[in-house]
C-alpha cells in the first residue's frame, strides 16, 4: 500500500470530563473511500471534529500528507487540502445554489479562478446545474447534500471528510450520492466517510474502520468487514466477542 494521506495516532479527547476518543489510531491510503462504522457513541463524528481541528485533543497526533496538522486552524486545514462536510443540512437556504457553491471559496487565496471552479463543480452535479439560479431551500434533501459536497470541492481538496451523507435521503438519492463519491475517488480524491447505513457504504468503500468506545477495533478491506460475522453482532448492540470481559 502507498503512503497514507492521513494518519491519526493515539487520539485522546472528548467533551468536558467525558473521554470519547481513547487512543483512536488508523490511517487512510490516498484515492480511496474509507468508511468509519461503529455503534452510537463510538466517537465517529468526534474523530472528524478532531481531524478538522474543532476539538482540542488531549493527546495524539494527526498527520496529513506527511505533515503534522494536529490542532491546526480550520483555514490552515482547508488550505492544506482537507474539507469537512458536517452532519445535517449546512447550506445557506436563502442564497442561490450557485452562491452556495461560491461560498466554498471564501477561504481561498487570490490566485484561484473561482468562476472556473464553480463551473467544474457544477459539471459533476448535473442536477445542481439545472437549478443553479434557484434558491437553495427549494432543493430536495438529497440535492442539498450534493450541494454541500459540491461546495466542499471548490478548494480542490485532497481529502474530504463526510459525516453521514445518507441521513434522511431516499434509497435512490443515497445511491446517487454514493456514485458521486465513487467518481470523486476515481479522480484521485480521498474520501473518509461516516455512515449509519453501514452495509451500502462499505459496498462502495475500499477500506473499513470499525470504531468502538473511541478505539479502533478493526481496520481492513471493506469487503472483509462486510463479510465478518462479528460486525453484524456489533451493530445489533453487542460488543465484539474478544472484547467480552
Amino acid at each position, binding site marked *: 500500500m502507498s503512503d497514507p494521506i492521513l494518519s491519526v495516532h493515539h487520539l485522546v479527547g472528548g467533551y468536558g470530563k467525558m473521554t470519547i476518543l481513547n487512543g483512536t489510531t488508523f490511517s487512510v491510503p490516498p484515492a480511496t473511500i474509507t468508511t468509519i462504522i461503529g455503534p452510537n457513541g463510538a466517537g465517529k463524528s468526534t474523530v472528524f471534529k478532531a481531524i478538522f481541528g474543532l476539538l482540542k485533543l488531549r493527546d495524539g497526533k494527526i498527520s496529513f500528507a506527511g505533515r503534522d496538522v494536529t490542532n491546526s*486552524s*480550520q483555514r490552515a486545514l482547508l488550505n492544506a487540502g482537507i474539507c469537512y462536510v458536517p452532519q445535517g443540512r*449546512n447550506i445557506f437556504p436563502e442564497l442561490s445554489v450557485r452562491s452556495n457553491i461560491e461560498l466554498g471559496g471564501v477561504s481561498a487565496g487570490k490566485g484561484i479562478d473561482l468562476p472556473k471552479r464553480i463551473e467544474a463543480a457544477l459539471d459533476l452535479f448535473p442536477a445542481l446545474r439545472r437549478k443553479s439560479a434557484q434558491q437553495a431551500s427549494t432543493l430536495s434533501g438529497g440535492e442539498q447534500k450534493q450541494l454541500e459536497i459540491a461546495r466542499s470541492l471548490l478548494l480542490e481538496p485532497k481529502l474530504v471528510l463526510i459525516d453521514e451523507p445518507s441521513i434522511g435521503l431516499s434509497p435512490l438519492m443515497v445511491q446517487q450520492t454514493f456514485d458521486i463519491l465513487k467518481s470523486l475517488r476515481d479522480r484521485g480524491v480521498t474520501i473518509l466517510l461516516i455512515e449509519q447505513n453501514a452495509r451500502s457504504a462499505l459496498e462502495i468503500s475500499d477500506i473499513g474502520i470499525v470504531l468502538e468506545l473511541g478505539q479502533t477495533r478493526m481496520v481492513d478491506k471493506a469487503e472483509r468487514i462486510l463479510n465478518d460475522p462479528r460486525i453484524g453482532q456489533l451493530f445489533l448492540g453487542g460488543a465484539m466477542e474478544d472484547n467480552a470481559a
Partner: protein
Amino acid sequence: MNGFARPLKIALGLIVVAGLIIVPMNFNRYGLFILSQWAVMTIAAMGLNLTLGYAGQVSLAQGAFVGIGAYAGAIMTTHGWPLPVAVLVAIVLSFGVGWVLGYPALRVQHHYLAFVTLAFSTLAFLVFRNESWLTGGIYGISNIPRPHIFGIATNKPLPFYYVCLGSLAIVSLAVWWLIRSPWGRAFVALRENPLRAQSLGIDTRRYTLMAFAIGSALGGVAGALYAPLTQYIDPVPFNLSLSLDLLMMVIVGGAGFYFGPFLGAMIAVLLPEWLRFTEGYYLMLYAIAVMGLLIWSPTGILGILDRHMAARRTKAASALRAVAKSRLETAQ
C-alpha cells in the same frame, strides 16, 4: 417584493426623516430631551443588536460601554476638547475595552457570556463610582459643555437634538453598510449555524469578537452623546439596569431586524412618558405591555410585521396558483 413597492418604501422613509427634522421644531424643552434620548439610546441599542441580533451573543455590558463613552466624553469636553474628538476617543476606547473583554469572555457563549458581561457591568460601575480622581465618584461630572458644530452653538435643546439625530443618521448608515458587507453576512452565518461557518474556514471566534467590539463601540458613541445631552453624569445611570433596558429595547423591537432598535428604543423611552398620566401605575402598565407583547410575539414588534407579510405572500402565492390552475383547465 417585501410587500411594499420600493418607491413607496423610499417615500415612507423620507416622510419619517422629514418628520423627525420638522415636527420637533414645535416641541418644548422636555419633548426635545426625550426625543434626543431616543436617538442616543437607539445608537446604543443598534450596537447591542449587532452583538445579539446578528452575532447571537447575549451581552449584559452594553450599559457599561455607554458609561465608558459618557465618561470619556465628559472628561474630555470639560477639559476643552471638542466633542467630535471625544466621540472618536469614546469609539476607540470602548472598541478596545470590548475587544479585551471579549477575547477571554467569548470563550463562553450565550447565557454564560451573559454572566461574564454581568460581572463586567458591575466592575465598570464600581470603577465609575470609586475612582473619584478621574470620574468625580458619586458626585459625578457637571457642566458638561455642548459643542459648536460648524460654528453653530448647540446649547439650546433644538440644535442639540439635531446633533443627536445627525449622529443617529451617520451610525444608521454605517450599520446598514456593515450588515450588508461580507462581515455582516458572516455574523449572521455564525448565529445561524457555527459549524457550517467553520466548515467553510471562517474563524468564528474572530468574527464574534469583532461583532462584540463594534457593538461595544456604538455603546461608546451613545455615551459620548449622552454626556452633553444631560450635561451632568454620575455612575447611577450606567448600572446594570441600563444594560437590561438596552437588552429589552433590542428584544422588544425585534432582535436581528435592522429597524428593531429604533422601535424598541421608542417604546422604552417614550411609552413610560405617555403612560405618566396613570401616575403611580405607569411602570406596572409598561411592564405588563412589554410582557404581553413578548408573549404575543417573541420575535418583537418587527416579528409581527414579518409574520403578517409572510401570511400575505402565502395568500398571494395561492391566488396565483389558483389562477394558473384555472388557466390550465380552460386550456385543456
